[in-house]
């Protein structure tokens, strides 16, 4: 009898496995339940997958960006606002997978872990989602792009609130074009380019080369470089837009002299360049509302000397993601430490059940504090000495433009990355304009328009 008792412990092993399974299921239920419930066939979702009876999406000032009225999903009356906010808010069908209407579909439809899709009083009200976005800045950015494709990203580098996140091409979610899938003008319209695209960074990458040089070359400011409009490295010609003659480092960055940075990249070597680039966020992705950005890339393994030189001025195989560049600029402004951006301020629930509230979290350190301080000074000098402070009137901006050759007979991609030093306007930004030509003429006015709108608000 005693041995039978001992052997019966095997039943307890079975019981433990059973309980483990229950815990596992409950865990999946808690973590993935929202996704399980959000299926078009689910009869508890009125209007199927169309969010016909879902909660509102609001901007930071309470402007309604999406709402359901009488079983219809409605968007703001102003078409520019609708188009500008499309990628942040998302469409009704959930085709834009990185939009809030996809990411928070379950919450908008009224789902919560406690009562599922059934409110205790029999109603079926959705939760409202309030964003950190300012719809005014969205519209300003969209209009400043002037019909060109590209991405605009602006955030508060102290709090992490994303104020503006625009991607083009875009479409009107209230009147989805019939030729969306076939017209080449809408190619990639479902993609939020600020999160999910990368472009050659061009001269904006000189910020990275500059950081590597600041950290490794003690007499950097005392040096003089000679620019004759081109230089031959490893039997290949590196060209510069100007003939800068004898030039110091600070002016080299301000005037974006290719020769200075090509020579610096070769001098620093592939290992040092890669180390700095990776520390500054290249070759990894950043996460915003659970969406991983497309990683910026810097890869000079096996590169020849002239290729290394081109990589130092943001060409070769370099690619940069707009949101990453925005975070990087936030880090420069913040003494090297980046604040992680976020988009959703609050998910409210009609029953007063605990809802989600968003907050920026301290991100990785992308730069040493002294490097960040010196970069900030150089970037400020770039604006005051070269572009003129009047390009960003009263905004105390530090920035770097870029004009990246993309090949294939296309116009260059225009860039600007930077931030405002003003204590009351702690905004970092990155703007990329596809086929924009010079960054100074394509991207800079967009950034200036958005920042002025922000300052005016």
């Amino acid at each position: 009898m005693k041995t039978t008792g001992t052997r019966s412990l095997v039943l307890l092993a079975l019981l433990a496995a059973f309980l483990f399974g229950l815990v596992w299921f409950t865990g999946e239920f808690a973590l993935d339940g929202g996704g399980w419930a959000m299926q078009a066939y689910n009869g508890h979702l009125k209007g199927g997958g169309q969010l016909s009876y879902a909660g509102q999406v609001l901007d930071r000032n309470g402007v309604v960006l999406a709402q359901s009225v009488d079983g219809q999903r409605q968007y703001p009356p102003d078409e520019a606002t609708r188009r500008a906010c499309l990628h942040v808010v998302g469409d009704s069908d959930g085709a834009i997978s990185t939009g809030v209407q996809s990411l928070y579909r379950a919450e908008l439809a009224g789902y919560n872990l406690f009562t599922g899709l059934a409110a205790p009083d029999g109603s079926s009200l959705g939760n409202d989602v309030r964003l950190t976005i300012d719809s005014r800045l969205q519209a300003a950015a969209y209009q400043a792009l002037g019909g060109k494709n590209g991405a605009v990203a602006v955030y508060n580098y102290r709090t992490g609130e994303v104020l503006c996140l625009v991607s083009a091409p875009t479409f009107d979610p209230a009147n989805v074009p019939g030729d969306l899938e076939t017209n080449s003008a809408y190619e990639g319209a479902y993609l939020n380019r600020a999160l999910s695209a990368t472009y050659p960074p061009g001269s904006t990458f000189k910020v990275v080369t500059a950081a590597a040089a600041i950290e490794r070359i003690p007499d950097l400011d005392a040096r003089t470089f000679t620019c004759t409009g081109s230089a031959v490295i490893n039997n290949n010609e590196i060209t510069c837009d100007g003939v800068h003659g004898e030039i110091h480092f600070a002016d080299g960055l301000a005037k974006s002299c290719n020769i200075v940075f090509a020579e610096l990249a070769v001098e620093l070597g592939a290992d040092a360049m890669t180390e700095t680039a990776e520390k500054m966020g290249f070759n990894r992705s950043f996460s915003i509302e659970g969406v991983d950005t497309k990683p910026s890339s810097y890869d000079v393994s096996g590169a020849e000397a002239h290729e290394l030189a081109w990589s130092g001025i943001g060409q070769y195989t370099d690619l940069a993601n707009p949101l990453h560049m925005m975070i990087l600029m936030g880090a420069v402004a913040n003494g090297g430490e980046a604040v992680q951006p976020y988009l959703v301020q609050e998910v409210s629930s009609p029953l007063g059940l605990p809802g989600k509230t968003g907050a920026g979290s301290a991100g990785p350190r992308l730069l040493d504090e002294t490097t960040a301080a010196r970069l900030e000074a150089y970037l400020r000098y770039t604006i005051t000495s070269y572009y003129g402070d009047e390009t960003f009137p009263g905004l105390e901006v530090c920035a770097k433009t870029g004009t990246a050759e993309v090949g294939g007979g296309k116009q260059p991609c225009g860039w600007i990355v930077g931030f405002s030093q003003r204590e009351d306007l702690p905004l970092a930004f990155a703007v990329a304009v596809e086929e924009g030509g010079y960054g100074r003429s394509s991207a800079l006015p967009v950034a200036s328009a958005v920042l002025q709108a922000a300052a005016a608000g």
Partner: protein
Amino acid sequence: MEWQSPAVQQAVSLLLFGCRAAVPALFLAVIWGCCASLRRGRRREEPVMMLEDAPSRAKIPVLYWENSLGRSRSCDIVLPDPTASRDHAVLYRREAGWFVMDSGSKAGTFVNGKKIQTARRVAPGDLITMGSTALRLKRVQPGDLKRAAAARPAKRAPRPAPLLLAATAAQLLLGVQACLQPEAPVFEPLLPLAGLLALEWALFAYSLKGLGRVSFELETLAFLLCGTGLMLLTQASMDDAWMQLLTMAAGVALFCGMIPFMGDLERVMRARPWIEAAAVALFAVNLAFGVASHGARNWISIGPVTVQPSEFIKVAFLFAGASTLDHLQTKRNLTEFIVFSGVCIGALFLMRDFGTACVFFAAFLLVAFMRSGSIRTIVLICAAAVFGVFLILQFRPYIMDRFAAWRHVWEYMDSTGYQQTRVLTYAASGGLFGVGLGRGYLSGVFASTSDLVFGMLCEELGLLTALGAAGVLAAFAVCARADVTRSRSTFYSITGCAAAGMLLFQAALNLFGSTDLLPLTGVTLPFVSAGGSSMISAWGLLAFLKASDERTYAVRRPKERR
């Protein structure tokens, strides 16, 4: 006030929500109460008889109803005697009194100086000699009980009637939910509910007053599950609900019949070959006249009723597997049981009823391990089974297609993952408290009330109640384990554990199959799922659990014994 008016509807919604929130609390109370009652109500490990060493007069307590005696340390009574065999004899209690049986010892066993050949009845005062050890059987004297144990304050166990009342309250709350439908209140579900209440209270009265039993925990737990399943069914189809109630009554009748049958273990041992033969014959009939239904040929039609023979064979299987200790100690090999199990599982494979085959295999492993205690044997058997499955898949690779969606159900949403994705979606839609009885959408999916019933529990009654139902089945295992050394025979211990293991394993296949943690095999959730054969067999298995509780066969109430 109009029923359809928003104010009434809202008030009804809130009332129903309150009902749904109260049900899991009652589940928890009933489970806790039943487990506490079983734990406190069972006998403490005190001697039932004493043996006195003849020369030294040292007293040895006899703790169990069946005891092995021998030199081996694994024996219940260890004889520190080099002339005794490792397993020398068995001392056990039957209705007629105490018996001794030699279990193939070298030196033989003697009662009052006479060598015994078969089981020999012994009375207090008789001298049992094994090797050079002589033990005299004695009654327990008050002084033999441990003082500490006697002084321990007995915490009162929950009484059976309040526990059944709590279960009844849960059933009534479910009944209220079944009646208050959005279009208009309906009262039809109250009839089967009344039937259920009559059945459970009749069984309660019969057990406690008629038979003088003191315990009703297992039945209370089972009725709690039955009521939940029944109320779910009233929403799907009233005909099915009546059928469910009818088979529930049949199951209770089987339960009531099996317990007295198992009271006489010699009779059970004699009947065993017949039960095995009947089981094999039933499988043969099934294979010959079986009706294919959704991939498995496991049904036979007899006139208007269809039955699933494999469900009844589950009960026969446990009869075949278990043994009393005197049989275990004398006939040690498992061959007969392995052959019988091989036939059963093979037949199920031929019927393509893989889920039930798995349940049988799990029960087989449990019984085999509890009989032999040999991990080597179990590993060998498992290896052989894996090899067998591997061979089958070599020749019939398409069987795998049925399980292709496992862990990828969302990619097979409209084919082989259809049922699982619907279960997950609707389970999540229910949240913790459910959308309300009869207000779910999973009921429209095939097999929702049987194989996918866990999804329906989650959707309509909420995750908490569904977990409560799972908790009841887990509680059966806890009870079986707690009773194991208190049982009146190893036959009861082994069948009790195996029955609980079978119920639990089948519940695991049902729960985790429908929610995609395991491949979907299509087995029922015991006591909850719609299905007559499965309901009857679940009660049959419960009879084994009941029999393993020693109080079941103690006619007198403990009050009178003192």
